[in-house]
């Protein structure tokens, strides 16, 4: 039996009192040894920052384990669940406090699975934020290899003083590569 999926709809402008929650963007407390900021700015097609976007990440643990731990909505400060949610601020920036995900298999490139929601965006968008550094793993990555070379960098987080920077451009010259999974 194959059913037709229910259509998505925009998250709209009024999600801020509903979807954000205490601790949503802190997968680990920022003071945790090894904690980094995964942060960036979300831009529209005119290059203006988007102050009403919502970003979610879902990631493996530093040792590459895929976690199935409850507690993302009521963080206890100890359990790493791998899920986080951050609404953009007035200047279009978002930031997570998290740990760097490890490769889920030997030689695989590590990445954050990223979902983007915003007012004006009629359906969610998926992308990946790859962890920089392991050149061999990145060069061997199937998805990266399938993307035109001049757009590949939109999928790579960039190391900076806070941790990793990952800007998201919904439209335009440097538009982020967004993903379509089979069956979508």
């Amino acid at each position: 039996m194959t059913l037709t999926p229910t259509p998505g709809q925009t998250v709209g402008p009024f999600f801020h009192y509903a979807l954000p929650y205490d601790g949503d963007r802190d997968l680990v407390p920022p003071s945790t040894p090894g904690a980094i900021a995964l942060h960036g700015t979300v831009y529209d097609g005119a290059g203006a920052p988007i102050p009403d976007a919502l970003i979610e990440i879902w990631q493996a643990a530093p040792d590459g384990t895929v976690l199935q731990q409850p507690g993302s909505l009521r963080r206890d400060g100890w359990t790493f669940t791998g899920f986080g949610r951050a609404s953009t601020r007035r200047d279009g920036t978002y930031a997570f406090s998290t740990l760097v995900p490890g490769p889920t298999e030997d030689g695989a490139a590590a990445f954050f699975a990223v979902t983007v929601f915003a007012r004006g965006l009629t359906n969610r968008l998926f992308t990946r934020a790859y962890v920089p550094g392991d050149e061999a793993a990145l060069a061997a990555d199937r998805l990266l290899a399938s993307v035109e070379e001049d757009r590949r960098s939109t999928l790579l987080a960039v190391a900076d003083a806070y941790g990793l920077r990952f800007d998201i451009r919904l439209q335009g010259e440097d538009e982020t590569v967004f993903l379509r999974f089979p069956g979508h």
Partner: protein
Amino acid sequence: MTSQADITAEITAIEADYQRSGVEETQPRRDYPPYRSSILRHPTKDLHHADPETIELWAPCFGHRDVDPLEADLTIQHSGEPIGERMVVTGRVVDGEGRPVRHQLVEIWQANAGGRYIHKRDQHPAPLDPNFTGIGRCLTDADGGYRFQTIKPGPYPWKNHHNAWRPAHIHFSLFGTEFTQRMVTQMYFPGDPLFALDPIYQTVTDAKARERLVATYDHDVTSHEWATGYRWDIVLTGSHRTYMEPQPASTDRDDA
């Protein structure tokens, strides 16, 4: 400011084009100019094909630690009863193969009976209801079922064009068994006269697909002298991971 007649003409032209194309669409268009905020916020390049890998084949896990069962009742979050038509909305979350999405998080948010959100950016001069916040959460049961008790939301004006009104709706946020199934949508009520006028509902160009966003009045959900009842089933995309029936509960899960 653009008139409703202008917006309606744009909507009608896009739907006529769609019908001529003969290619079925089941999801909203990202590029849908009648919804003005979408103009600078849609990707112009084709989405890039990706086979889901590792982390994408799993979804975050939520348990009873995360959600209090009382959060499914939006009418008991304050000291008094909210104003409006008390209603129950219930249904099942299934994947594209019809398999229940079990023990997974469902989040909703909505305007009050007067069409006003608690949100600080909502400037609609309709009254706030001190007894209604408009946020609910629950976990689906072993059959993928969810159930909320709430107040029927009112339609509300917005700034897309002159005299723009949204049909009454409840926002839904859903997770599947894979991250690729993540989705946010809106549930509408049958027979709303604003459907044809609303450029958000109409981002879905296919009439059959739009109907999948509309709940059904169900008198078996309605309860005697208490609340009206609506049923709305949600289908997520099919999952890619090989299905394991039912998965052994990990020792860490607190929702057994």
